[in-house]
């Protein structure tokens, strides 16, 4: 007896999918390929086990196709595992699909009834909730209009409002938090925190590390059908992002070998190299939080750079490994003080330095994107990931930037 401490217990589940080369559904195809229906098995889950405590919020993260959505589908009983056991205690509600069963010709109100009933509510339960659902969706004026007249944002708002009104013991969510405008998103988020506060167990599949970090107590990193790491979102995500950027680096190395850096001759400028230096001027790729970071860019200019440098813009963007845009700054090319070295008639060298006295981004992997635009704003040159670095720190903090702070007694 493990007791009822756990809301979800999954032990050693495996799941295979058949991948058909070309699936034959019809009689002719079945007859032709009888007994040699060409398909192969793909093992999506290779023995996953985990437990989720009652009232806990857990995030499942991982690359596309790692099996995290399949886990969610198994938990809701949309699919069944090939082996292993799944035990989910209490009423399960899943937000895998918003607006299931919505009929465009019917009014918002009628659709609330249909949608909520598909989620398993009885008429009495819906009657009791209908006012709060409508209020939450902020669609009071339109609720008796047919849904086909709604904008897609309104549609999603209505659908989300129904979905979160189901009082479940276990709530399963798949990538659906980006609903409606900014205000509504904030509202959805508050609602989720409310649901969590009420003691509901939550399992979220998401690519957004931020969401998971804000809502979840624990993260499960799933890779190749197995649980790779379980722990606090902070730790797991860092390792996950590290692994992802290693992978990307590997890929870009492979690519560089294969496509032999195509510098088109008619490019007005071309990027040569970028270096990162620390305070002591030595070349580095790992920095401490708050340390000075200097970016040095060397470029070749084929045409007369003066034309561009008068009015052109150089833009440097800082991007976190998961693609989150952190910070960007731009300057007119001439202000960026390119240092020219005329060693031939054609190619002009251009060196640009950008100094960050205090690099206050929190630990993780980051890279720089370089963008050079002409006076009309058109792109002259774009270079993604021209230099990469890692930030380290001792004490764990959450979020994006370090903000100077002080704890005092009140």
């Amino acid at each position, binding site marked *: 007896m493990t007791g009822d401490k756990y809301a979800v217990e999954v032990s050693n589940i495996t799941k295979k*999918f*058949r991948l058909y080369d070309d699936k034959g*559904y*019809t*009689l002719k195809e*079945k007859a032709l390929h009888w007994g040699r229906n060409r398909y192969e098995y793909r093992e999506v889950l290779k023995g996953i086990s985990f437990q989720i405590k009652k009232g806990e919020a857990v995030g499942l993260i991982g690359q596309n196709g790692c099996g995290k959505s399949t886990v969610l*589908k198994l938990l*809701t*009983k*949309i*699919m*069944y595992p090939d082996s292993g056991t799944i035990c989910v205690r209490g009423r*399960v509600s*899943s937000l*895998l*699909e918003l607006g*299931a*069963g919505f*009929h465009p*010709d*019917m009014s918002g109100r009628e659709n609330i*009834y*249909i949608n*909520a*009933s*598909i*989620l*398993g*509510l*009885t*008429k009495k339960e*819906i009657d009791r909730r209908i006012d709060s659902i409508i209020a939450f969706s902020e669609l009071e004026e339109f609720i008796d209009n047919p849904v086909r007249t709604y904008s897609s944002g309104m549609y999603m708002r209505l659908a989300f409002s129904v979905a979160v009104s189901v009082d479940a013991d276990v709530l399963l969510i798949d990538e659906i938090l980006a609903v409606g405008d900014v205000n509504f998103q904030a509202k959805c988020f508050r609602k989720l925190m409310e649901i969590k506060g009420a003691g509901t167990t939550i399992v979220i599949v998401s690519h957004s590390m931020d969401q998971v970090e804000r809502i979840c107590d624990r993260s499960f990193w799933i890779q190749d059908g197995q649980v790779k790491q379980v722990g606090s979102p902070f730790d797991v995500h860092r390792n996950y992002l590290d692994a992802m950027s290693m992978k990307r680096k590997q890929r870009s190395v492979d690519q560089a070998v294969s496509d032999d850096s195509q510098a088109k001759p008619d490019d007005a400028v071309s990027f040569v190299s970028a270096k990162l230096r620390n305070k002591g001027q030595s070349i580095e790729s790992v920095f401490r939080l708050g340390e000075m970071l200097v970016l040095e860019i060397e470029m070749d200019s084929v045409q007369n750079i003066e034309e561009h440098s008068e009015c052109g813009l150089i833009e440097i963007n800082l991007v976190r490994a998961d693609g989150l845009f952190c910070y960007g700054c731009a300057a007119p090319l001439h202000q960026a003080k390119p240092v020219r070295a005329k060693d031939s008639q054609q190619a002009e060298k251009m060196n640009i330095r950008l100094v960050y006295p205090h690099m206050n981004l929190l630990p993780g992997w980051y890279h720089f994107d370089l963008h050079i635009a002409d006076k009309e704003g058109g792109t002259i040159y774009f270079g993604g990931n021209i230099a990469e670095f890692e930030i380290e720190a001792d004490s764990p903090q959450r979020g994006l930037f370090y903000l100077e702070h002080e704890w005092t007694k009140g």
Partner: protein
Amino acid sequence: MHVVKELWEYREMTANLVKRDLKSRYKGSVLGFFWMFLNPLLQLAVYTVVFSTIMKMGIDRFYLFMFVAFVPWLFFSTCLSSGTTVVFAQQDIVKKIYFPREVLPLAFTLSQFINMLLSFLVIFAVVAVSGVVINPLALLWLAPVMLVEFVLALGTTLLVSALSVYFRDMEHMMGILSMAWMYLTPVIYPVDMVPEQYQYLLYLNPMTSITVAYRDILYYATAPQAETLLHAAVCAGVVLAGGQAVFCRLKRHFAEEL
């Protein structure tokens, strides 16, 4: 038993799907809900013209003789042929949301059943106009006969809807089958038109007993024979049990196959 309990918990979903189906079916058409009545009436008109003036059957009030059997037949044959698309058409929710899958065939059969009940209003009107004596005692038998037909239709829908998820040809095959099946059921001819040595074959068809029972009640204005009714009930029960068994086995992989 578990399925029944769960279906009860999801009764609101079933009710809503039925409502949605009935409401949306004639939405946008000018005559709207009237088609529900107009449809059987027009079909009746066609068959009356064909069988009373061209292919004379020599049966008194043949239009009524046929119509009381044709409306129930239409219910069954729709379940047989269009029932194939029930799960397939709802693949979006099947792939994304958990609910007892039996809701889909159940809601479909119910909505077709309600359609038939409304058509029966037309039948009663035709019976009244045609001047057949109405036997109230016989009419009481209508409810159990309808129930038996419902059970048979539900079993059929369960079977074909599950199979066609794996085997898409079902839809076309069942279209042909239902056409053939109609001529193997005494819908447009009386049972005694069939050579006596083959009549037992006719009764292998569960729809035969049901058709005979309907006709006894509404055309001959007598109570159906207990034997007929029992035969129909047993057949329907077997089909429902078989249909549910197949559905239950196949439903586990719906989400993957769709």
